[in-house]
């Protein structure tokens, strides 16, 4: 099993969720995060003083899946979250050793 972590622009959430639903990803977990990368926050002026915003709001999606489905999911996220503009985000994949569904105690593939 793999754990896919995607950092995306906040307004892409619904598109991505729908794209994932379409390929039958039925579970995921979303966190509000702040990203630091090539895309910088616009520089702001507050009461006449300029300052640069280092962090931009992003969403982090975590999706646990069977290893076999990773590529399809990456593809779906890439298409749905991409705008071609800087700051579109990243997808990271790590190995998932064990999964448990708390309610039933089912494990691994059955727990996803």
């Amino acid at each position, binding site marked *: 099993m793999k754990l896919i972590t995607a950092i995306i622009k906040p307004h892409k959430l619904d598109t991505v969720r729908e794209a994932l639903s379409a390929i039958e990803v039925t579970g995921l977990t979303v966190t509000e995060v702040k990203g630091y990368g090539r895309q910088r926050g616009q520089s702001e*002026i507050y009461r006449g*003083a300029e300052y640069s915003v280092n962090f931009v709001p992003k969403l982090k999606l975590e999706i646990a899946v069977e290893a076999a489905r990773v590529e399809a999911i990456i593809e779906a996220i890439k298409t749905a979250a991409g705008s071609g503009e800087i700051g579109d985000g990243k997808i990271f994949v790590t190995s998932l050793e064990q999964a448990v569904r708390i309610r039933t105690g089912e494990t691994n593939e059955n727990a996803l």
Partner: protein
Amino acid sequence: MSQVKKLLALGLAIATVAIATPALAEEAAKAAPKADPAFLFNTLLFLIGGILVVWMAAGFAMLEAGMVQTKNVSMQCTKNIALYSIAGLVFWLVGYNVMYEGVDGGYIGTFLPKDIPVPDKDTANAYSASSDWFFQMAFCATAASIVSGTLAERIKLWPFLLFVAVLCGIIYPIVGAWTWGAGFLNKMGFLDFAGSSIVHSTGGWAALAGALILGARSAKFHDGTITPLPGSNMPLATLGTFILWLGWFGFNGASQLAFATNIDASAVSNIFVNTNLAAAAGVVVAIVLSQLLYGKVDLTFALNGALAGLVAITAEPLTPSPAMAIAIGAIGGAIVVFTVPLLDKLRIDDVVGAIPVHLFAGIWGTMAVPLTNSDASFATQAIGVGAIGAMVFTVSLVLWVILKFTIGIRCTPEQEQKGLDITEIGLEAYPEFK
């Protein structure tokens, strides 16, 4: 609010009574309790005006709660309700009499609690003595609120409250005595209708002295850069400004001190109109200038602009034509946009912009009086501005220094970092939002 003016009002009132109770009715009058319309109208003006000025305490609280960072909001609320309370208590204990009792062309009145006459002994004036006390008390609290805004986010609670007690019990009343208490400035012909200098600059000077002694918030300036620390809650700041705007109708309007004759009532009405136009002009100039200078409208400048327009018109809200009121308020708005960044450059940290709004626009308003009121002269106005500034700034400075080297005035860097809400008063403003 000068004694002089009070006597005038009394004269009018007696005349009015004469009209309302002609000879034939005198008999009846002796039997029945006195019902003198001038007394009733004047008292009503003070009470309604007083309520509106009291409401400004809430305005300052909300403005400041909105302009500080989340971690200092409960503290700011605490300071504001405490300062308003202390102001009221000390203004009864000594303040009012220091300001009004036996100043006689001099510099200071008497150190005694204000005597509140029981209703059927309340005959010395053309209005109820306690209604006047109530109105004046509310003014006094205003000066303290100004200090609270500038020094937010780094000053400890108790030394701040001690300063407030002295400011409201002694410093402000002395300033008040000089003009409204018929002291030396009044004799010289210094004019400050509702207190651009007497109230607002006084607060501003005390705040400036405090800012210098206390130093800037540690996160604000380092290695030559300015780090803005944006206010945490813009709608609260906006609400605060609207409250202050509303309260200002009482502040300026009831400073006419009489509603006994048609001329008084018209004067109060004109003051309302000018007060509103000046504030409106302050807003419009602030948003236009911030658009031109920074390419963006800055809401906090709009809010400060309204207040600067209000402070500017306060020294003379009656004689200006509407066009002049607009001009006076507009310059107030401009002052904000130019001097807020200036203070930053001078490394003076004024969290809510109280110094530009109350001190700078207050000086401007005071100096603008001769433009529309021929009883005023630029020289005398300048003397008044200077005398008030010198006294308040010096005394405040000394007081801040004493506080600094005795009980200490500044929170530790760690407290500042974590926020005063958790570290000083153990209560987060929004404990569930993070």
